[in-house]
């Protein structure tokens, strides 16, 4: 194994140092470690190229001078091999290091440590004088999020079993376009290929494992795609709620308008999801009355009637 590692390092050095493309024959002749007959060397070289590409190293293939030879040659461009973030200031290095350290979950430690080592290798001192001393934390990042992010960076479709509203797991297929961390949950956003529509999936509702399907580079993210801001749009219907003064803290945070009065304050709250607002109103018991819309009002009344009758 160590022979092979040595050969891969030597191949990288030679391809990086060369100012022109090296042919296979030059490689076999000059780089240590290529042994056996022509066929064996050939096989070895093909595997080595694959391995270096798996490490993210781009090997460029190009022709030599056509007057002499039209055999293909190989090289690695130093500008594609090396960290392209140039002329970083100590403050920038610190920001990048803090960002890499935000990943605390086991599924991401190898990734963040590797990134951190590369940043440390730049050899700049960090500057924490005007920065938070501690890295913030990205929380709840599990293996499934990791798999989804790997799929997102390699543009590979994924499939997983997803708990639907009824509490039943269903197989879904997704082209991941983006990720979001909102209200302490991770969401994958992308094209649900079966429904042929953009859908959100909460990562902790995935049952079992996220699995890649098919090849990498199998889709492109439409340039026009953007994660929708969760600002209430003009069309978002509003619920009019009467709320006891001093109660309904969460509702007040969501409200677009609040009119205070003695007995009841009047709140307008956007209805992104009728079931969610129904639950939230119920949570507040007698401190909240739904004035409108009638759909929400009757949903709340019938839920209350049901609970009264089952608990009587």
């Amino acid at each position, binding site marked *: 194994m160590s022979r092979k590692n040595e050969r891969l390092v030597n191949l990288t050095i030679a391809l990086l140092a060369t100012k022109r493309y090296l042919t296979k024959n030059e490689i076999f002749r000059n780089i240590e470690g290529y042994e056996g007959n022509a066929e064996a060397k050939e096989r070895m070289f093909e595997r080595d190229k694959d391995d270096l590409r798996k490490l993210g190293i781009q090997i460029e293939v190009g022709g030599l001078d056509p007057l002499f030879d039209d055999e293909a040659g190989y090289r690695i461009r130093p500008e594609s091999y090396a960290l392209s973030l140039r002329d970083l200031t100590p403050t920038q290095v610190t920001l990048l290091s803090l960002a890499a350290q935000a990943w605390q979950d086991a599924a991401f430690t190898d990734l963040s440590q590797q990134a951190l080592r590369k940043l440390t290798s730049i050899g700049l001192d960090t500057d924490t004088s005007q920065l938070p001393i501690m890295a*913030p934390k990205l929380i709840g990042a599990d293996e499934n999020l990791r798999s989804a992010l790997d799929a997102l960076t390699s543009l590979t479709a994924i499939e997983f079993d997803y708990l639907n509203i009824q509490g039943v797991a269903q197989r879904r297929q997704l082209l991941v376009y983006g990720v979001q961390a909102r209200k302490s949950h991770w969401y994958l956003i992308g094209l649900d290929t079966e429904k042929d529509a953009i859908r959100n999936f909460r990562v*902790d509702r995935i049952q079992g494992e996220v699995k890649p399907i098919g090849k990498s580079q199998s889709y492109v993210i439409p340039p026009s795609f953007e994660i929708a801001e969760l600002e209430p749009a003009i069309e978002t219907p509003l619920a009019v709620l009467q709320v006891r003064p001093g109660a309904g803290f969460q509702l007040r945070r969501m409200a677009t308008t609040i009119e205070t009065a003695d007995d009841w304050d009047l709140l307008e709250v956007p209805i992104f999801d009728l079931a969610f607002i129904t639950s939230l109103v119920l949570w507040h018991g007698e401190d909240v009355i739904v004035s409108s819309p009638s759909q929400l009002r009757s949903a709340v009344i019938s*839920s209350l009637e*049901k609970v009264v009758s089952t608990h009587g």
Partner: protein
Amino acid sequence: MAKQETGLARTARLLDLVPYLTTHQGVAISELAKTFNTTVKEITDDLNTLWMCGLPGYTPLELIDLEFESGFVSIRNAETLAAPRALDRAEALSVYMGLDLLSAELSSSNESLTSEIANLQDQLRTQLISAPQVQIEASLSSEFRALILRTIRRRGWLEITYHSAATDQVTKRRIAPYELSQSGSHEYLQGYCDSAKGIRNFRADRIVTVQEIADQVWPSTQVAANDQSIRYQVKIHSATRQVLEVLPQVAAGSATATIEGYSALWISRAILSLAGQVEAVEPAEIKAAVHARAKAALGNYH
């Protein structure tokens, strides 16, 4: 890009050792092992391998020159590999997302830093083949986080205003914070709460304000971590996703569940919010409390 402690991971480490050593001349082998998250033996093997590498010709003139017999490593003649490797796409995305969080935490408090972050994100975006959309929300502002961590370190006291979902009240509490930790998908501040005279967990995203206060005596005696819990039993009428998420102790497919809770108020609010999908069975007080809450609310409509 999945985890791979294979030969390839070793190759990656060999390539990454060179730039690290170049900027950390004289680093101890033991330190190196720690940084690269491996053993001294592995690192020594790596160094022995690197020693055999270099430019074609492989005479001492071309080989990487390493010295490490003393236990401290120095490197020469390794210019070709001296620049740190580019971040691969997964690394670039993870750093990109970390920057997003950093920016969200700093928010408006520091505009020069947030624009610096945006600039770095632009540079990183060019490394991701087709730009993914990323949006990260912070559970705690950097200002609060810094204040909390500082207070934990110097064993001081804080006054926080906190919204409790169970009581639906925002209250001021004086606390001696112990630690910021995560549990499930939430971040919690744990500390000794002076008003409750016990250790309490506060969900970070429900902390409304944080303020430093004059230090009180640090609670010296061991205090009980929790008050007595309440065991209650529920009947499941429909095991929807909402039920499984509000009451994670309910096993999918079961008709009843016995659950441990800590606040009677929280329990009755939660059961009412589930709109009849779950029914409180025991103890009788919980069942009666749910009934009373629903009845009082219904009274508003008649």
